[in-house]
């Protein structure tokens, strides 16, 4: 049955490609979400991501305004532009969510993460670990004759790079905070 002579199953102008910027490329975005600091709000946010099948690369949360009962959740996520838009719209729908900012598109921003790394070793390896830590501006927060605990702050990439270097030198444990991020400027 031909409707207006449109070829059966025609999809040259499909609903998916009406807009060229609707791409399938997976992007990484950092979202800052300001919420009421009330019971269950984190569960709502996490439940949204798990329930709708979105990714969470990292998530941090802490109260930022005690008197105003506000917390800030920083979420690093990945998805196609359409999925990212959905994530933001769905977050905005949650009743105790006040603001959703996409720091990746709203202009330049700074991202920092803190990590603690335990590196065990003796002799040359131990010296090399200390030398590299110095280059990365990681500081020693605990030390025994056979181990160090380094503290490092930086972008997730920098921490990844440092952890990769420490691995052959006796990396035994890593604890990372996840990303905290703010937009630049006033």
């Amino acid at each position, binding site marked *: 049955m031909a409707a207006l002579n449109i070829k*059966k199953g025609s999809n040259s102008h499909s*609903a998916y*490609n009406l807009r060229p910027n609707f791409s399938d490329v997976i992007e990484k975005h950092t979202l800052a979400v300001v919420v009421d600091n009330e019971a269950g709000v984190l569960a709502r946010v996490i439940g949204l991501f798990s329930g709708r099948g979105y990714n969470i690369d990292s998530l941090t949360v802490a109260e930022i305004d005690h008197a105003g009962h506000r917390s800030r959740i920083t979420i690093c996520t990945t998805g196609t532009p359409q999925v990212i838009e959905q994530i933001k719209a769905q977050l905005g729908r*949650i009743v105790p969510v006040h603001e959703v900012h996409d720091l990746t598109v709203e202009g330049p921003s700074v991202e920092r993460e803190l990590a603690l790394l335990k590196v065990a070793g003796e002799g040359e390896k131990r010296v090399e670990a200390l030398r590299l830590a110095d280059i990365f501006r990681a500081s020693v927060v605990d030390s025994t004759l056979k181990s160090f605990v380094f503290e490092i702050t930086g972008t997730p990439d920098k921490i990844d790079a440092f952890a990769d270097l420490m691995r052959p030198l006796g990396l035994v444990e890593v604890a990372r905070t996840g990303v905290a991020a703010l937009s630049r400027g006033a």
Partner: protein
Amino acid sequence: MTRQMTGAKMVVQALKDQGVDTVFGYPGGAVLPIYDEIFQQNDIKHVLVRHEQGAVHMAEGYARSTGKPGVALVTSGPGATNAVTGLTDALMDSIPIIVLTGQVPTFMIGSDAFQEADTVGITRPCTKHNWLVKDTNALAATLHEAFHVATSGRPGPVLIDIPKDVQFATGTYQAPVKGGSKRYKPQVKGDLDAITELVAALETAKRPVFYTGGGVINSGKAASQLLREFVDATGIPITSTLMGLGSYPASGANWLGMLGMHGLYEANLAMHGCDLLINIGARFDDRITGRLDAFSPHSKKAHIDIDPSSINKVVRVDIPIVGDVGHVLEDLLKVWKSRGRKVNREAIAKWWTQINEWKKVNCLSYKGSETTIKPQYALQRLEELTKGMDRYVTTEVGQHQMWAAQFLGFEDPNRWMTSGGLGTMGYGLPASIGVQMAHPDALVINVAGEASWLMNMQEMGTAVQYRAPVKQFILNNERLGMVRQWQQLLHGERYSQSWSESLPDFVKLAEAFGCKGAKVDNPKDLDDAIMEMIKYEGPYILDVLVEKHENCFPMIPSGKAHNEMLLGDADTQGAIGAKGAVLV
């Protein structure tokens, strides 16, 4: 006004202050203080249900037919878990309801106490929002906030979990504040630039179509009024989703009928062939779009929705307008009029010629019978005999639901209650009772399938107790008809578990419940049977024995496009490919 009172009394006071006249509920240990307060007042009517799922569907029926929020009250643990299906149903269909649950006392929470369940945890994904109230002083504000959240923006179900010690303790009651809370304020006015862009597109469109949904009904009667004015003034054809039936009258000149999986041929082809698609308060559900990459391939798409997350969720649109349908329609009309009420009359007349060609296919035709009652015929007769009455219709889920949507005509909003998004068998009977409670003198009919009806048939007891004269119009095909249809089309006619075996005698069942029932199996007796049902002053079960193997057409098989509709049994051979078979 602030006053000291117990938490239990606050619940009743807040309901009164919110204008609630009816509560559907079921008592239990964790809500006894509230029931004690209900006992000591006369302003709010309590309807004792037979199962908590029934209470929630009744609240939905009440809400959908009045435009006011519905209220249900249930106990902790099993009471709360029994409410989950109804909550999910209301969430999917954006129905404003408030469910109050009892909870074990605060000092026992987390101890696996008797009838303890993590109610806010369980219902978090199936409510718009929920609250556990741990302090009596916060209870009143929370109750008022709950009404505000349920009814503003995109409506939906909310739940308040109230521990028993919070009900017993005394605190300060606060009356509701005008205009609701400050923290939850969804956008209602649409962006004027986008509205103007839509008007400009509409002025030149050659093949425009309105695709409307439940959002028009949720927005209120004024929205339906504005829609009618706009559609009739522009002469643009209009179709609607299952949820939106009645916002534009079925007798209206521009009405195409329902669209979607079991929608009308002309409606679906208009969607496929249009050059401007104006979505008003619908959500591009998969029952509507069919195969997405072939959905309305040549159209510019506008979407009006109060929920920003509905926009660009599944279908990319060109003109998104976030706002309340009523507000946006008002602005649309204003802008369109101020620009000179322009449409491309000539092109639209040609468009109608094409649509009228499609109409000639007569897609709802079916093979009649002198000896067996065809389900379609039963609905045609029901329509003929009840048309023009003060009538409300609810349905269960299955073939009968789709036939009801195809063959019954709705002239006004809020007259048609059906479970769309969740497709909940067992919705219709309790929903019909909820509707009847709100409209005691109206004719309320539940068009049911025998299998769905059995899922909440215990609520017949509620109907009898409250003398709710609901009419249960059961299209009994002794089959899980919709399942059987899919098995025929998709699973090599292997009818696995799709019979309704050991059915009760519905007439005797009616008698056992203390109401009246009748059975009809001859087309000649059908009219009399329907009239008998309508005239009877009380709840009534009419067991209509219909053709057992009738299939519901038109049908867009899963994974197919609008222009790949099946029109009848002859079309069905190999209609659904392997890809379509994995879809539901």
